[in-house]
């Protein structure tokens, strides 16, 4: 069976209208709750205010969680890692060493370009990822 885009089922990650409606309802409800929490607090009813404030806060926390989770998913583009690779060349005659970017066709022990110091040919002695610069410790 050929793999095509048609039979590849990937769900949509965007914020649906239902989710948006739920967020709005919870938002209004939480806003009311917070408002009444402060009202109760100013009216010397601390027990009631605790309930109201708690409900309002939980409501906003839920909205924040839903919103940021969705945003993180929709805006984040997964990337395929690519790294810098270098080729190390050495001249067996004069021991001159040179490092340059990797080129397709390079391989270890390949007789490569002529030496710039003597008349010999440089040999590829190593191919590896470019070392990442060390992060400075935060002071």
């Amino acid at each position, binding site marked *: 069976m050929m793999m095509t885009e048609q039979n590849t089922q990937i769900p949509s990650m965007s914020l649906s209208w239902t989710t948006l409606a739920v967020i709005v309802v919870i938002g209004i409800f939480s806003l009311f709750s917070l408002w009444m929490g402060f009202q109760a607090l100013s009216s010397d009813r601390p027990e009631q205010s605790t309930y109201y404030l708690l409900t309002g806060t939980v409501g906003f926390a839920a909205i924040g969680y839903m919103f940021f989770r969705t945003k993180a998913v929709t805006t984040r583009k997964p990337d395929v890692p690519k790294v810098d690779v270098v080729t190390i060349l050495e001249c067996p005659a004069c021991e001159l060493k040179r490092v340059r970017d990797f080129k397709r066709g390079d*391989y*270890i022990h390949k007789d490569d370009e002529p030496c710039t110091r003597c008349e010999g040919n440089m040999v590829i002695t190593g191919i590896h990822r470019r070392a990442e610069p060390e992060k400075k410790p935060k002071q």
Partner: protein
Amino acid sequence: MINVILQVAQVLGGDNSDIGMILQTLFSLSFIIYLFYAQRIQAMTMLRQVEVTLRKVKTIKDEGRRVSIEMVKEVGKPERDPTPDVDRFLEQFVISPVSMDPAGIMGKLDQLINVSDYTNEAEVKAIAPQATEAEAHNIENLLGAAHALNYYYKAIRHFYLLGKKTMNVYIIMQIHMILPLIIKEIEATSSAIQAFRNGMPIGDGVGPLVVSKLMRGHELIDVARETVAAWVPYEGRTLILLKAKGPGGSVGKPGAGVAKILGDDKKEKKIKAVIMIDAAGKLEGEPVGEIAEGFGAAIGGIGVEKYKIEEAVKARDIPMYAIAIKQDISHVIAPMVEELHKATDTALESVKRIVTERTQEGDHVLVAGIGNTMGIAQ
């Protein structure tokens, strides 16, 4: 409008309002709902995480397929569009032989792998007729990585859709629990795309790299399929160096190579030791490129090559030493990191030390560098 809302709030929030009771009821209700639907909520949360991974895997898998097609077109210069052939390759499978009666299973596996190898090689030559031998091997490796990514994607999608359909927390848990490990493997495989496309040495190539440093400039003999050996004098001994034939991506047939060399030496019995060098998985906390020495056949894979080496060594009753170069799973098929490149020099010193300390002058020592020799000639 705001004034109206505030007035309503003030009325509702008054001393005689029942709104407080309503809110408390709703608050209690949410706990009751959670009591009954906790598992469903948990399932939804886990599904969400699987969904995010699925998206990431799809991007990587598509990239693997795109790069494979691009490389076949660029290097192989086929007359027709290779896309259907690449897609067919990505859906390829191998059925493992029955293991209920394990006697003879190694022979079956060996035959199966050989058929798969020869067929894939012929198919790559057909879809990329202009590719050199090394490039054809690199295409094979690249298609292998794309195949693995395709499989990961389909397996995760299967559990995701099944979980979504049934909302069964135990089905979702099966994939969710191993998700971090799968992500690590997928990221490792995705790093291989760049390496395989360009023919760069990879982390698994440390074994062949060590051996190639001793082998360079000496006469080479083909001892098995895509496997070469060289006889090199060292400190009064003779080192028989064996590795996969580079610089194309190949692991060769070290089992067949070792068996042939030891078999040829059956009468003279000059070979007194076997040393194997291979990449080994490091544990968390261990540094990359750490060298460890041990005993036994240092070789991974399905087990066929290891079996052949063990059988051949057992028949001669000679010691087998192992040198492991530690690396993370994310390094194995990714472009070689500097630490591993430097570690090959240390491993080379270990080989020399074992040879001088544990063998006598006049002895022959078989040194096998195990791994994928992509980007490493001899």
